[in-house]
């Protein structure tokens, strides 16, 4: 456990010395917070009843699963619009740690610090967990902070407390507090696998970015009305992610071959 902590502290000390990394970690969550808050702010008059004609245009699955009794059509539309951004909040824990994790192994190869590190009594699993958590924790904390800002902003903007409850229901909480970290672990583990296999940091970053594609597909799929992210779907996604993460962690330890990494790297 102590070695894992040492690796985490070392990774953070290195990564956060770079101010651009701090900017990247902060910028995306702020953007993802500002967009839905802007929409809520722009449509805040909907709750007074001026937009009720929109009701008929909403997908029936959405009105059934998301809109509690008592909200008018315009308010449901507001809930729908903001719900679209739930997937954007899911992009934050995937996008932020990918670049950090993608560099973590291949970066040590290029600076020749990996061999002395592997010569210590650290085990492969300790090293990978340390590097994984070092990338996951800032991303998850940034997501939580962004969600906190979003919740606070919503509370300040939305007058109708029933609407506020609908915006910040269990779906959101499962998505932010369970699926978010699981997505981050998936992205980081995948990036570490890539980083273990390639010999150029640029290639590692490019290939690792592929992991964002399924999340973006989910975002656009939801926008296109292909599915609605209700509580059941989010719960299923959480269970699937948990299984996928376990599989990826197992694969990452298999892919991380000390010998190949040291001897094939020139």
């Amino acid at each position, binding site marked *: 456990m*102590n*070695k894992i902590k*040492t690796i985490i*502290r*070392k990774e953070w*000390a*290195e990564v956060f*010395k*770079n101010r651009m990394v701090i900017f990247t970690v902060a910028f995306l969550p702020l953007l993802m917070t500002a967009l839905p808050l802007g929409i809520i702010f722009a449509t805040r008059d909907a709750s007074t009843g001026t937009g009720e004609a929109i009701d008929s245009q909403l997908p029936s699955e959405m009105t059934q699963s998301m809109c509690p009794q008592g909200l008018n059509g315009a308010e449901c539309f507001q809930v729908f619009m903001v719900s679209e951004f739930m997937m954007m909040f899911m992009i934050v824990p995937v996008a932020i740690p990918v670049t950090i994790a993608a560099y973590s192994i291949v970066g*040590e190869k290029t*600076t*020749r*610090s*990996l*061999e*002395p*590190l*592997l*010569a*210590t*009594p*650290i*085990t492969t699993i300790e090293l990978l967990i340390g590097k994984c958590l070092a990338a996951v924790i800032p991303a998850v904390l940034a997501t939580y902070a962004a969600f906190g800002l979003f919740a606070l902003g919503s509370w300040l903007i939305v007058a109708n407390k029933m609407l506020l409850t609908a915006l910040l229901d269990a779906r959101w909480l499962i998505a932010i507090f369970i699926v978010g970290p699981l997505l981050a672990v998936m992205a980081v583990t995948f990036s570490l696998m890539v980083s273990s296999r390639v010999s150029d940091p640029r290639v590692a970053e490019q290939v690792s970015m592929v992991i964002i594609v399924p999340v973006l597909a989910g975002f656009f799929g939801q926008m296109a009305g292909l599915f609605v992210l209700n509580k059941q779907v989010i719960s299923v996604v959480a269970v699937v992610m948990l299984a996928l993460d376990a599989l990826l962690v197992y694969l990452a330890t298999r892919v991380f071959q*000390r*010998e190949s990494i*040291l*001897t094939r790297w020139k």
Partner: protein
Amino acid sequence: MIHTENLTKKFGTILAVEGLSLDVREGDVFGCLGPNGAGKTTTVRMLTSLIGPTGGSATVNGFVLGKQDTDIRRTVGVLTETPGMYDNLSAEYNMQIFAELYEVQDVKGQVEKYLRMLGLWERRFDSAGTFSKGMKQKLAIARALLHEPRILFLDEPTAGLDPEASHLVREFIAELKKEGRTIFICTHNLDEADRLCDRVGVFKTRMLVVDTPANLRASVFGRKIVFHLCAADEGLASAVRKLPFVREVKLVENKLLVNLDDPEVHNPDIIRTLIGAGADLQFVGELRHSLEDVYLQLVKAA
């Protein structure tokens, strides 16, 4: 401290190390000499459990290679061929990370001890990236010693250093030798090996020969004694040649170069013979072949 039997490493079809059998005793400084690509770094990597052998067996510090790898890594220190640092981090923090990974009890104390010992204490807050190559090498040696390993592997410890930095590193290795640590050095610097090593092995995929530098010189070239005379001629050379223990005599200007096995015993006989034959002897010395001559001879023959 290090014992190997037929240790072999293949990378696909390429044989990197072939049947290495070796014993390095406690407190020995062992020099592994060999050309580029001879398998020296592969040997160090195997003996420090960084890579596994494909054949043979070895024990390091009493731990079995392949079975007690974490114990081996815990008890040996390694200076790798290209010892990278975390350049953005301070020298002190670089050391602290490794002290923690090596489970050192008194992290601060050990870091301070070795930074002071290698003259880096005043620069401890500076980023490792701002250090010169020599300073980085010293920092890497300090890093390898933090957990007080009984065995130290040094892969090209003075490669790329200027003469002053090389001298400092060599002095430090000599100090470590005095402390009784077992040191395994891979080097191209034969003068360095000659000065530091109790025994050397000439390596080219397999170990060609292992012995003390002096014995290697004697076994490859024999021992040559030079008798400086006021005037030398073939008659004096013939007189010496007749002595039963003399292997070879060469006349070069006013010098006789005599090849024999045991000069400490037989030099007085030769001197008596020369004086008896009317020679005026100026002085006597031993012609020392460099370890480089020995090395080149052995590698060429291989």
